[in-house]
């Protein structure tokens, strides 16, 4: 599905755990996640930590969508405190 969306000109980032499959199939923008059952979570963390992880994951995903690629490319999750550079911290829902 990621490929077809890209074929139609919509940059698409695939958040998934089994990166080799994503690359074999040919997804162009891939962000590795921590588990098959929770692509944007990590149940081993506290709720606060998990949201911070999800935020880093999404920030990486957004960066992937803003980056030109030539081939299937993996974007490892940006490390460091979540949201700091974007001024998002503290803006709770």
């Amino acid at each position, binding site marked *: 599905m*990621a490929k077809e969306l890209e074929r139609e000109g919509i940059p698409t980032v695939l958040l998934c755990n089994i990166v080799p499959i994503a690359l074999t199939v040919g997804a*162009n923008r891939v962000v590795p996640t921590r588990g*098959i059952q929770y*692509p944007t*979570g990590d149940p081993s963390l506290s709720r606060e930590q998990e949201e911070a992880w999800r935020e880093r*994951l999404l920030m990486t995903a957004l960066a992937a*969508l*803003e980056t030109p*690629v030539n081939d299937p490319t993996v974007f490892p999750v940006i490390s460091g405190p979540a949201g700091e550079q974007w001024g998002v911290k503290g803006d709770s*829902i």
Partner: protein
Amino acid sequence: MGLRIVHYINQFFAGIGGEEKADLPPELRSGPLGPGRLIQSLLEGRGEVVATLICGDTYFAEHQEEACRHSAELLLTVKPDLLLAGPAFASGRYGLACGEVARLALHELKIPAVAAMHPENPGAQAAVAGAHIVPCGSSAASMKEAVPRLLALGIKLATGADVSPDVDGYLPRGIRKNVTAELPASARALDMLLAKIAGRSFASEVPLPQFDRVPPAPPVPDLRWATVALLTEGGLVPRGNPDRIESSRASRYARYPIGELRAFVPGEFESVHGGYATDHANADPNRLVPLDVARRLEKAGRIGRLHEVYYTTVGNGTSVQKAQSFAREIAAELRAGGVQAAILTAT
């Protein structure tokens, strides 16, 4: 008397006209036309091109169902022993039509059929749906090589001879046939291993699937001004699964509004995916579709706008073809909704 052959061509090769005549609906003319004359001359008494089925390329592409139905009716009036289509070379609409007519003749009318086209012609996808497709060059310059191969395979099929992609050069149709091997698998595997170690050539008996490459879409320079959509193949649906998405081999996808939601609330949404343990996702659906944080990033201005619906299906034994058709439809909707980028989560 020999084989009675119907030959399918487009308006151009029939000599009717170019793009201005591409809206022509299917029609049947007696005898060979255009490349059909070459087929006729190669037959040398083994048969006859009794009729030519013609359809405009645009008509076929835009009215595929009707064009197929009408073509089938016309074919039934002749009941040929063989249908040959093309060669379509690299022409996309023509290739699509040739592939479809060949598939239809074989599967629905039980008439042996072969089409010829360049292997990268989008119409060559019909091979996966069971049509026999002979690869050829990309332009009509390869007509003289293409037509004899088209006819040769056609004659073999029409006379019930055994054919295979290796011997007859047609595109693999993804069909497995049981055969008796001379050696047991253990011996064949060792032979293959020894050949590999010695650097000799060997052929795998289980060809790996070939995935095409899609040129990456250009990035969105700055998502602060863009609309972004959330999608998942992880089966997240409102409680009760109102559209009854199947837990495996999904035949459908759905879209659900999230415009009013700040986050997914457990109990209101659930996963119906049958291919992984959904406890963690059900305990917090934002682990599957990251609505909570995406909404926060929207509020903070990092994302211009989150699209008002999210898309969902179940990617569990779902065929590649189905997934592709879902995504094509979704892409059209996303573009119509002004969406510039997509975040797709996979389990």
